[in-house]
């Protein structure tokens, strides 16, 4: 009995230890593809992180308004989700910038322009309530995410640093999800399951298509 268990137990325990060591390393780069070029261009990486941070700050500020001023509970939940996702991304990118010793503060003129843009958005939302507030805020989110996706997709091809590439890929996917949620809320449709709705998972779409075909 003991010999029957000892060998497989030792093998799996070894696997357990190896993967534990990988886990303790706490590197999001686990998810990156091997073989990425590590000859990073710090200027491009810093620029990408600045764009990411600016988008996060804009969405965090505007989501704080929507979290308390939106009427529909699902819009408030979406605002909360945006807030939390962007805070997590910002935390990650600040950690990465520190590790890579990159300066994320933009030039003074650019910083002032960004602050003015946030003030302009807040002025647009001022005085709006209920559905008119939601419509305006969702339009802002749609526009903001579309722009962010375009900018990040362009920068992603230029960034060489593996961790930064992993982070921007992650941020792009999350932005896609946010944009999909914005569209759902703009259409004011109920949530769908099993083939209903544009955000239905791919595997369910495949299954339902297979079920329909003769």
């Amino acid at each position, binding site marked *: 009995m003991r010999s029957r*268990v000892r060998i497989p137990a030792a093998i799996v*325990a070894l696997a357990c230890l190896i993967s534990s060591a990988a886990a*303790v390393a706490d590197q999001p780069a686990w998810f990156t593809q091997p073989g990425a070029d590590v000859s990073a261009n710090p200027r491009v990486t810093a620029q990408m992180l600045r764009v990411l941070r600016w988008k996060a700050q804009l969405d965090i500020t505007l989501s704080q308004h929507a979290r308390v001023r939106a009427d529909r509970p699902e819009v408030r939940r979406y605002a909360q989700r945006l807030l939390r996702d962007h805070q997590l991304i910002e935390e990650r990118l600040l950690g990465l910038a520190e590790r890579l010793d990159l300066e994320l503060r933009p030039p003074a003129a650019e910083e002032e322009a960004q602050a003015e843009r946030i003030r302009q958005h807040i002025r647009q939302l001022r005085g709006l309530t209920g559905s008119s507030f939601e419509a305006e805020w969702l339009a802002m989110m749609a526009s903001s995410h579309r722009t962010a996706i375009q900018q990040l997709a362009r920068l992603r091809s230029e960034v060489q640093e593996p961790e930064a590439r992993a982070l921007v890929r992650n941020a792009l996917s*999350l932005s896609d999800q946010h944009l999909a949620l914005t569209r759902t809320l703009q259409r004011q449709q109920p*949530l769908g*399951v099993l083939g209903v709705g544009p955000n*239905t998972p791919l595997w369910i779409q495949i299954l339902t298509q297979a079920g329909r075909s003769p």
Partner: protein
Amino acid sequence: MTPGRWRRVLAVVGAGAFSGLVAGSLMLLTAMIHAEVTDLGFWLPLRQVAALWFGVDALIGDGGVILVGLLTHLVVAAGWGIVFAALTRSGPSLGVSLVLALAFATALWMVMTWVVVPVVAPVMYERIRLVPVAWYAIHLVFGAGLALAPVLTWFFEGRPRDRTEEAEPAGEPALA
């Protein structure tokens, strides 16, 4: 199939499902506490599981969505519990069972991280990439819970654990 064999099969399924439910609940609780502490949102783990069915819309769904996520998680956890109970039906000791369960959970983590989740649960995948250590840790919690399976199998079979295989060979004198 003889009645004794049936009883053994039922004991393995019952013990596996029960230990899977216990382990899955522990895992879920750990994930939810972590999500709350790190300000990701207490219900996020269940919403992410529900995204299997609802897609990204699950992230803004109501209580029904959370319930679907809970049921899905528990059913899957019970299923993995049955698999583990079947693999360890020969009844290793609790210590060996714990090592095997942790290794099983690690293997599960690998399969989930690199094969299953990216394909069927992209909504979950994009967020576990941001908290990789917690993602691994909750699988270890699941493994620790699964270690109950062999003990429960003996219990459901209605007999004390048979240690004769580990005892001294018959006929040899005891050391004392």
